[in-house]
């Protein structure tokens, strides 16, 4: 039974595919989007989210840590990230949930059982399971197993991907996947690289192959003012070759900021969320959902 490294299971999502869905978030991503609202999804390895406001000052972390990464000076808790060996002993002893391990290995069967708990909601709403991340396609074996289990039980599946994986990964799962939620962030390779840390040649190539293979695709375009707003027109033009494929605009929101802070990342994105009116205008202009 293949294990998956995941960081979250969301049991009642109405934003990630049709109907009511259970979304399984895989950990690890090959892009590093500056605006990522799930920053804890990027690194493949488990890591620590730190919420200092929850700390009760019990200093159990300091006692447990073999590397001396935790210190308390005048009652103020500090973590030296450089010393951390990711043994997570501190998280295990932090009952105040100030130190939280994010990322854990679960077997596909275990995850599937959780998915099945919500089958009634899928049946009532035309929903199903969505595999997201991070980049779920970086864990192809576990993903394949989950998709197979879902197919065997008649559960609708969606794979939420940024497409930055070898085409071979798509080939192994495309016939088991009912819907691809395919992210396109920028059409200009330089803009894409600047925003995500990687070029988009493979992403666009995979998209074309997937579209030509007749897979069911819903494109999702993050709209980040100041970063990719000049790209929307190009993306719309690119997609015009496949009129049957719809695209959804996902406006920036700042809900990920608290998690960036919890990861002790200082360089938070300075972006103001666009207004509803602006988003509506853009949707109308480019025919996005």
């Amino acid at each position, binding site marked *: 039974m293949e294990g998956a490294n*995941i*960081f*979250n*299971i*969301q*049991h*009642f*999502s*109405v*934003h990630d595919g049709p*109907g*009511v869905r*259970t979304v399984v978030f895989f950990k690890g991503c090959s892009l590093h989007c500056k605006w990522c609202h799930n920053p804890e999804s990027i690194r493949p390895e488990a890591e620590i989210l730190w919420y200092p406001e929850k700390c*009760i000052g*019990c200093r*159990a972390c300091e006692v447990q840590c073999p590397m001396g990464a935790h210190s308390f000076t005048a009652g103020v808790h500090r973590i030296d990230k450089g010393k951390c060996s990711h043994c997570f002993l501190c998280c295990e002893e932090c*009952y*105040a*949930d100030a130190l*939280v391990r994010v990322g*854990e290995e*679960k077997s596909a069967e275990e995850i599937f*059982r*959780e998915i099945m*708990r*919500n089958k*009634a*909601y899928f*049946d*009532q*709403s035309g*929903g199903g399971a969505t595999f997201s991340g991070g980049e779920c396609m970086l864990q192809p074996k576990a993903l394949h197993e989950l998709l197979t289990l879902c197919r065997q039980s008649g559960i609708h599946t969606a794979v939420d991907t940024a497409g930055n994986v070898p085409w071979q990964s798509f080939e192994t799962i495309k016939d088991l996947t009912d819907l691809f939620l395919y992210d396109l962030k920028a059409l200009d390779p330089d803009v894409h690289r600047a925003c995500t840390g990687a070029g988009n040649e493979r992403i666009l190539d995979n998209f074309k192959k997937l579209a030509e293979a007749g897979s069911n695709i819903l494109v999702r375009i993050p709209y980040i003012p100041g970063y990719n707003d000049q790209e929307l027109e190009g993306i719309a033009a690119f997609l015009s070759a496949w009129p049957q494929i719809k695209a959804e605009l996902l406006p920036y929101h700042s809900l990920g900021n608290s998690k960036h802070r919890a990861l002790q990342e200082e360089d938070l994105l300075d972006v103001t969320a666009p207004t509803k009116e602006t988003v509506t205008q853009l949707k109308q202009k480019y025919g996005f959902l």
Partner: protein
Amino acid sequence: MNTEKVVMSQAVTDRIMRLHDSKLAINDKKIARHGSIDIDDHGFIDFEDFTFKAECAPDGKVHGCALIGRNLRRFLNEMPKYINPDSALATCWVGTFDRFVPLGIAEEDKPKELAETIKKYRITQAGFGAMNHLCPDMEIGLSEGWQGLLEKIRHYRKKNRPADPDFYEGEEQLALGILEWVEAHGKLAEELAEQESDPFRKKNYEEIAKINFALTKRPPETFREAVQFLAHFQSVDRTYFAGGALGALDTLLEDYFERDIAAGALTEEEAVWILASLFFNDTHYTQIGGLTPAGDREVTSRLSFVILDAMHLLHIPTNLGIRVHAPIEGQSDVAEALLRRAVEYTIADGYGVCYSLEKGIAEGFAKNGFPVELGRMRVKCGCNWVAIPGREYPLQDVTRVNMAVALHYALDDLQKDGNCSMERLWERFCAHLATMVDCIKKGYDRHYEIMQRNLPEIVLNLFMHGTIERGLNCSNGGVDILDLNIDGIALATVADSFAAIQQRVVEEEKISWDRLFTLLQTNYEGAERERLMLKNIRRFGSPESMAEEWAVRIRDYFVSLCKGSPTPKHHLMVVPGMFSHGDVYAYGRTLEATPNGRFAGEPISHSSEPDPGFARGVDTFSPALKANAVALTQAGYGNSAPLHLDIDTGLVENGGGVDALVALIHAHEQAGGTLINMNCVSKEKLLAAHEDPASYPDLVVRVTGYSAFFASLSKEYRQQIVDRFLSA
């Protein structure tokens, strides 16, 4: 069938809005004089100057049917009469009878032998002496009328010639009092008509006078007369022990509605106004939708939609429930349209109907040994409960066993004898819980013996099948079905406590038994880390958790206690429930610290719901996670354990929101859930209203099965809703 919203003129919409404004003004006055109101936002109007001098028994109390009947008759005659200038209906009520009259049970009839157990186990709702919490069959009233009911009483009094005429004497006095009171409203309407210069209002008063005079002589014939009759009933019913059930409003009124519409005597918008006037009069519980007893036809009609629109337009607390069931092939479009409309209104208004779920109610009821067809006849008619109108005496929502008290004494036993293990803890918990349930069963036996001669259901008896015919109070064999409920509460508090002990004390050995006892006795003072260690396990609600296993085990044992044997003396059927009402603060206030990290005095968990904030780690909170836990731990015999969903408007404001909530409702119904209470409000608005309730006078919320003005609630009750909301 037309499933569209009723087309409303501005004039009628404005009239309904004036009723809304009147209600807010009445409510402000009530809050100023009486303080917070944590129960249903009853529609009574406060007349500060009205007083009443009761006629009492030699012991200084008022008990017995005849004495109560005489007092009620005089009370109805003396109380202020009221007609709101924007209402289609006359009457109001002025507060519950016990505010004016020392109603009480004779000392010699109280179960003194149970007093010690009641005190030890803090059983504040022992069932004995409980009132209302059954559903009248208003078809009896609508077909007989007030005069017909009086004649029925006299007919059966003559026929039965009871040795003790007390019962019939009291019922007759009441019926006479109501007739005089209705007549007085006719006269008031006449007087108001004479004084009124506005042509519409003048005509309206004249119409009200005509209707009230007619209803002193014959049963209602038109839609408006029928609704006026219901307003009469609910005013008197609330007065006497705060009765609150009307029944299935759409099926009760459908014939009158269809007939008047067909004859051109009524428009749909007039019907909306008349119904809004009924909802303004009081918050009696009503249901729309559902199935016929045979289960082969949906009862949803055009009137169901009209009723829903009346609730929406009036926008005050209205205890309307919609019955949700699996689609009936070829018929489900209309019922589904009604459900969708109800959900749309919930999202738009922030609150709305509650969702009463067919499968768990009807099939669960059948497990008691009744045909499922009877189960389908049960109507949502209380804040969390259902009953067959006119035929069932279920006493739901009036008895509670705080299972956390049993756990407290079980831990006490272990500490005293030093024999500490999970097995022994469970054994002692079971023993204490059994004592508590047994105490309530014995209390019910006494209730059955003495209520007719003490506090009969003098109002509801008029609308039951058998009471008048037999000359018996409904609690005493007046109806065919006595199925007495006992609610076991604090399930999550207890389940999480067992799981915390098993994990931290027994398996991980991080806390010793002695240390646990010390922590509980010292209320975790200076031991925050250990408290959080116990609290932050995988709590009930987390899939496949140890706490979930404990919750199921505790539920099963509680159910077996209730179903294992009837009451010991009179062999009355007992049915398990798991409803805590909003009383989780009251029950928590007297409870010591518990092993789930709960401080002494903090609230217990709600009904069979997980505690707020239960979701941790990989499983983030979702309505489905909570719904699954509630469905899994239903008592299973047809009595409701509600699911509360406090949903941020952000989740559902997009186009798929209605679909998602409809799916959730259907899925919970199919999973065996029984009731969903839902609020949709933004976090910002709720927090702001909690901070400054007076600035949000018309924010209506579902507290549990009942709705109320948020501003009317005490800070504790508001906090309960805020906690639920934030944990989502």
